[in-house]
């Protein structure tokens, strides 16, 4: 199949950046979206041009490294799919694709489609961990956790931290990401101890990093490759109200 691409090209942080048109020729329906970009890049390298820079690592949809906005949707048109697991058979021959980096004030573009997601790390660094001594690996069933809580904690822990929620949010808010981390730890006994202080410092750090506020559009949930639900945002609010009530 043949496609017309409009790809965001930007030299460095200070460059203004622009969309550049490329033609992707003879692309197999079975290659992934990133492999299609690899093929385009091979052509560019052969011509002596600068290849398109983009992030990727595992290409299995589990590491959270890749991520671009394809035709206005973070990670492209398929639900619960990272862009590395998106295959070209989901597009049609002759399609025009706009490929842009994740955008938010907290995500400055480093080059082309690569953005700096350090701000997300800062949120984790502020409180997304457990500092109590949990000892060695406990025996199975020594610490009883209700099936419902275990399942919910696992659902929240599925977040791979790719940043698509932030890219899709009209407000550039990191609420779904932060909520997933807060909820995941708050639902397990080891994380419960620091739940109150955690939710306070993580939300504070989120605002400090320049992320916006949640106004409940739920665009984040719609693009999340792991299907993280906005119920965790409600959980974050509950944790926050509980923590502030205890102060």
């Amino acid at each position, binding site marked *: 199949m043949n496609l017309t691409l409009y790809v965001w090209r930007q030299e460095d942080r200070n460059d203004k950046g622009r969309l550049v048109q490329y033609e992707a020729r003879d692309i197999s329906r079975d290659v992934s979206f990133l492999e299609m970009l690899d093929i385009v890049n091979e052509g560019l390298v052969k011509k002596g041009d600068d290849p398109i820079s983009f992030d990727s690592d595992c290409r299995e949809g589990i590491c959270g490294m890749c991520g671009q906005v394809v035709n206005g949707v973070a990670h492209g048109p398929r639900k619960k799919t990272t862009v590395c697991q998106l295959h070209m058979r989901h597009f049609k021959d002759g399609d025009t694709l706009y490929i842009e980096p994740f955008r938010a004030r907290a995500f400055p573009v480093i080059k082309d489609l690569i953005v700096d997601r350090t701000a997300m790390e800062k949120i984790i660094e502020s409180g997304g961990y457990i500092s109590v001594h949990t000892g060695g690996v406990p025996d199975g069933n020594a610490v009883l956790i209700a099936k419902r809580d275990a399942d919910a904690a696992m659902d929240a822990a599925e977040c791979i931290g790719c940043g698509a929620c932030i890219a899709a949010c009209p407000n550039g808010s990191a609420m779904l990401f932060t909520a997933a981390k807060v909820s995941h730890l708050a639902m397990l006994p080891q994380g419960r101890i620091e739940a109150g202080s955690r939710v306070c410092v993580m939300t504070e750090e989120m605002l400090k990093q320049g992320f916006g506020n949640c106004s409940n559009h739920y665009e984040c949930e719609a693009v999340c490759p792991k299907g993280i*639900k906005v119920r965790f945002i409600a959980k974050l609010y509950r944790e926050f109200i509980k923590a502030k009530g205890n102060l």
Partner: protein
Amino acid sequence: MMAVTGQFMILYVIAHVLGNYTIFAGAINAYAEGLRHWPYTIILWSSRTLLLISVFLHTWYGIILKLENRKAKPETYALTRYRSASLAGRTMVWSGLLIALFLIFHLLHFTFQVIEPGIAATAHPDALGRPDVLTMVVGSFQRAGIAALYVVGVLGLGLHLYHGIESSIQTEGLNNDRTLPVVVRTGMAISVVLFLMYAAIPVSILMGILK
């Protein structure tokens, strides 16, 4: 803050429309007179005071929120495709502004009664000596321009609540997977019903159904 003040205003708006519907029973003058007397006057003035505070806080925080969010997303995409954000949700600040402008007009019109002094209710009591609200309201809405203005105003209110009701519940952390879709749909239904109830008053007067 947005959620709590918003929810109080929603309660006021619901109580307000129910009160207005005494017009269909021909009892609006009695209702208006009743509100001026003990003990209802206490309810009226305490809710008006809370409403005024709510309006200011809600507007203030709403504008700050919008400015912060704009700053957090300085650049948009060449192609933007919303997957779940509704038009109502994305235009909250504008529907809010429309409501604010409408509210100012509405207060000048029916509360301070300076827009049409010729039929001002407090200056022209009815046969029983009560403010003649009925004549004022019917006289106003027989003019198409004013009726249209009110319909547009309450349309802004409907749009705002279309997103606002469910959004406020979510922000208070009262949702889970099971309740979220129900809350979203209930919020939309309430906003549509409120819009239709409010719009029915000027429309039925303009059409001559209510005289």
